[in-house]
């Protein structure tokens, strides 16, 4: 009992169109390069135009992001130990995201499905790590975690 002259629904396209992905990637990349250039040429330890952490001002404690700009400055000038001391969470996250980006690029190049860039498990794990990191870096015994 096949119905004659049946209208057929269109095929389902998956994923974002490549032009949008490339465009947003380009904008994001340029923003990162621009911010990196500013931090590279203006030492955050001596220049005063950088915004101050409100949490640090309010409480005197280090927030999970405190020291990120100094860490980036140290990293861009090749001082990895200082960068890790300034904000190891920032450096670690940057390394993980860079590795994941490279893995995604390789998958895209090989035309294999790659799935989500950020999975819920990764987000929850990051939240836990960031929380522990924030608590630890404010103790004297773990002062190597704070800038």
């Amino acid at each position, binding site marked *: 009992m*096949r119905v004659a002259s049946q209208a057929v629904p269109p095929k389902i396209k998956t994923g974002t169109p490549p032009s949008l992905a490339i465009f947003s990637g380009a904008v994001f990349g340029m923003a990162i390069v621009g911010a990196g250039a500013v931090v590279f040429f203006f030492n955050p330890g001596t220049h*005063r135009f950088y915004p*101050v*952490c409100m949490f640090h001002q309010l409480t005197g404690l280090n927030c999970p992001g405190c020291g990120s700009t100094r860490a980036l400055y140290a990293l861009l000038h090749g001082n990895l130990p200082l960068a890790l001391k300034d904000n190891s969470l920032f450096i670690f996250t940057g390394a993980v995201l860079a590795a994941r980006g490279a893995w995604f690029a390789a998958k895209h190049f090989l035309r294999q499905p790659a799935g989500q860039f950020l*999975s819920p498990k990764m987000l*929850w794990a990051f939240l836990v790590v*960031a929380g522990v990191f924030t608590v630890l870096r404010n103790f004297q015994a773990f002062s190597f975690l704070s800038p």
Partner: protein
Amino acid sequence: MYKIIGHDGKEYGPVTGEQLRQWIAQNRVESRTPVFVDGAKDWTFVGLLPEFAALFAGGVLPAIAPQTIAPPAQLRKTNSFAITGMVCGILSLTLCLCCGGIPFNILGLIFSVIALLQINENPQLHEGRGMAIAGIILSAVSFLILLFSMASGHSHIIINNGQF
């Protein structure tokens, strides 16, 4: 006989189950496609029908429909707004150096609320309620820090003494 709503929003059918199976095989119909079964009260989703559920589980369709109505894993997708909301919430707290996390806590609240609304509307289709709630909490905490620091006279505009 089944009626479905295609990815273009138009209604197709009524067609036989065999035809619908072909459409699934040709990627014209997915587990989240709305379907109306003859004699049913309301629309449902193809992935929720036991006679098609196995097609989305990656296996061969058995001759006899399975008795379970548990939705297959592919039917539930992680809500993108929930992920974006939680990312914004995390950014608003970790990047609080910049204007008290201003763009991110607002975005985090908006995205997480949208995510919760979408999840509540169709709970079978969306995952990520926990992430949406986390996004709201993180953004709210960021807002609280911002409010406290404004109330206590601190603001990011005052001179940076190298502490950030």
